[in-house]
């Protein structure tokens, strides 16, 4: 079992690298965004909301695209695109919901930034919504990492 698990055709290596690298940068970017956005909800500066918004827009979102592109490529190589296997279902499920949540969190933090610029204060509810969504995203991606590593059937 452990031997079978580590044998992989060479042609799968590059798509797997792109998938894993994208996922790692994405999770790192989400934690970075969360650190800024939670600081903003505690009466943090305009700078914190701006940094949280930019972390989502310029790091987490592009990294998500790289992760998903790699996922599609490796799934195609492994003939798993139409698979009913549980771990593939968890992966695609988290990825689909994750895409939606990243977009909503980015919009919420962008609106919080605009409001904070107008009132020269904290982003208030928008920053809290974005921070909460990012926290949910991080939790979902830990579940996805578990599913990808343990491959439950």
């Amino acid at each position, binding site marked *: 079992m452990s031997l079978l698990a580590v044998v992989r055709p060479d042609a799968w290596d590059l798509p*797997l690298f792109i998938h894993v690298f994208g996922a790692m940068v994405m999770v790192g970017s989400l934690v970075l965004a969360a650190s800024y956005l939670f600081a903003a909800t505690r009466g943090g500066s305009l700078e914190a909301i701006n940094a949280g918004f930019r972390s989502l827009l310029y790091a987490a979102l592009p990294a998500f695209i790289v992760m998903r592109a790699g996922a599609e490529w490796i799934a195609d190589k492994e003939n798993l695109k139409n698979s009913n296997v549980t771990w593939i279902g968890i992966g695609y499920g988290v990825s689909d919901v994750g895409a939606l949540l990243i977009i909503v969190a980015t919009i919420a933090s962008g609106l919080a930034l605009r409001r904070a610029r107008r009132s020269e204060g904290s982003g208030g509810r928008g920053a809290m919504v974005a921070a909460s969504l990012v926290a949910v995203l991080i939790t979902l991606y830990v579940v996805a990492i578990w599913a990808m590593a343990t491959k439950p059937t």
Partner: protein
Amino acid sequence: VYHTLLFLHLLSAFIAFVTIVMFGAYVLGAPMGKVGFRIADISWNVSGAGLLIFGIWLALYVKSYEIWDGWILGALALFVAASAFGAWAHKGVRESLDGSGEMSISRIAAWQWLRTLSIVGILVLMIWKPGA
């Protein structure tokens, strides 16, 4: 056992990227407060312990791996290099936050990018496993 070890090893690698991204953002001009620095610092220490413990455990557990395989020794060498580069980057950022900064931002960036390259190099070795 194999899948649990792999999950914990992989999770440690993801946590290492928290530090890579946070320090990377800092050297690219993003702000870093004391809380952010602390998150990055704790992540680096936790991931380092996890990568080493679960990585070596995996190498001992999987029959087709040996601890002296070239790709594993290469990863360990890169891990040591990443730790050294990370220590310099950490020192520079800490001094900068304390206001006692002697290291320039370009020097901190150099250490940070070297650490990033080392960690990405480990990822490459873990996936391609040359010689395995």
